[in-house]
């Protein structure tokens, strides 16, 4: 008797679809896997509906992409956690909040106001906003409510496997395929909380020339002038999150002569990658001339860096010790 295939579901939170395409870009490996498993839910690629998903009691592996932004995402995640033997947080959004966590710098109402009222091409004299109730006879139409703050998965449920990256690629995908195959062949369940990436940092893998001592004289933005493709970015005064970021992505950005923005998330033993990076980066500024500058001048040099939260927490604000604005609503 043929053994029943394992069930895999791909469930979407608030994402961009890039994680879906990254799975498609497994190319023939995906076709191979499709013969070994039963994909029971994946709205991007197959037609199974929510009612079909609800009927399935046990799902071996749920690959959950995207962060949690609405009530519907919350419910889907809770359902997925209940049914799943192995829950994979797939992609930077699911693991750390992703770039949408930057939305947590604002309140829902502020985001709403901008999108549906204040942008120059919007015409909304009647001040309608999405999410309001619509009634047609006895039928009520109401699209899912937003929750207050964007969240990575592990703020709500326990996560078994983390596949970081925006989107996951290279070693991360290799390891995920390994995990799936090991499970199919040997019933192997990975260690809870495992991160499918390297234990090294981007710096450890970076092919660029690193000086013994990195001195940042002046901070430089990437468009200001030519960037030496052989030299460490930090040594050129350009912010690069290599020191605090996990490796396993293959360093494609750095190879394209652009600095790392940290989408692989914090290296092991780093709790809050943005804060940790401040600790590292600040040290380097004028580090060989500290005594020749006054305290005020040093502070001024450091504070020339614009937008710390956008640089240091681009993909990982969901992992910040402070992960959302602390303003009073209506202020600022």
């Amino acid at each position, binding site marked *: 008797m043929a053994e029943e295939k394992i069930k895999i579901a791909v469930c979407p939170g608030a994402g961009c679809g890039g994680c879906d395409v990254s799975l498609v870009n497994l190319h023939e490996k995906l076709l191979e896997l499709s013969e070994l498993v039963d994909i029971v839910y994946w709205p991007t690629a197959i037609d199974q509906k929510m009612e079909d998903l609800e009927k399935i009691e046990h799902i071996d592996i749920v690959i959950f992409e995207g962060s949690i932004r609405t009530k519907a995402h919350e419910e889907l995640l809770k359902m997925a956690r209940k049914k799943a033997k192995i829950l994979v947080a797939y992609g930077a959004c699911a693991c750390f909040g992703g770039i949408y966590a930057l939305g947590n*710098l604002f309140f829902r109402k502020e985001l709403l106001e901008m999108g549906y009222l204040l942008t120059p091409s919007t015409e909304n004299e009647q001040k309608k906003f999405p999410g309001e109730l619509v009634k047609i006879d006895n039928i009520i139409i109401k699209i899912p409510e937003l929750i207050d*703050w964007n969240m990575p998965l592990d703020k709500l449920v326990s996560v078994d496997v983390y596949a970081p990256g925006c989107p996951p690629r290279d070693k991360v995908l290799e390891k995920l395929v390994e995990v799936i195959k090991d499970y199919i062949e040997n019933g192997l369940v990975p260690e809870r909380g495992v991160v499918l990436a390297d234990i090294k940092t981007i710096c450890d893998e970076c092919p660029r020339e690193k000086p013994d001592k990195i001195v940042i004289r002046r901070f430089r933005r990437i468009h200001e002038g030519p960037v030496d493709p052989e030299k460490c970015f930090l040594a050129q005064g350009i912010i690069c999150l290599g020191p605090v970021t996990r490796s396993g992505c293959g360093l494609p950005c750095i190879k394209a002569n652009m600095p790392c923005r940290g989408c692989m998330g914090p290296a092991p033993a780093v*709790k*809050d990658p*943005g*804060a*940790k990076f*401040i*600790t590292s*980066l*600040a*040290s380097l*500024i004028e*580090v060989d001339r*500290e*005594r020749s500058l006054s*305290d005020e001048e*040093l*502070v001024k040099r*450091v*504070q020339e*860096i614009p*937008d*710390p*939260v956008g640089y*240091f927490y681009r993909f990982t604000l969901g992992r*910040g*010790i*402070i992960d*959302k*604005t*602390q*303003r*009073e609503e209506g*202020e*600022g």
Partner: protein
Amino acid sequence: MENDDFEPKIIGFLCKWCGYAGADLAGVSRLEYPPNIVTIQIPCTGRLDVQFVLEAFRKGADGVLIAGCHTPNDCHYFSGNFKALKRIALLKKLLEQLGINPKRVRIEWISATEGRKFAEVVKEFVEEIKRMGPLKLR
């Protein structure tokens, strides 16, 4: 937000050689200063990781004080204090973006003989935080 009952919780990261010694001297000299501060000795302010400050806030601190050796020459480990100075400068910018008053973090140079300065700074800081009100983190 005025609240007469509000007693700020201050965490002080004090370096062993200067800041902590200065605090010790204040104590030995029986100088009065508010009891709101809980002191943590670190070998050098250069040991201060910005994560500690955020963690202190997360755990309930309304203000964080860092006290180290005077620049340019007093640091026992040569340049640890400069690192702290720069880190706190960048942290303050981050705090502003996150909607936390950057004045809730304060960095001071307080030598081992400056017991009086320690007491003054703590008094001043507690009053300032009282005026700001408690930091109720979401």
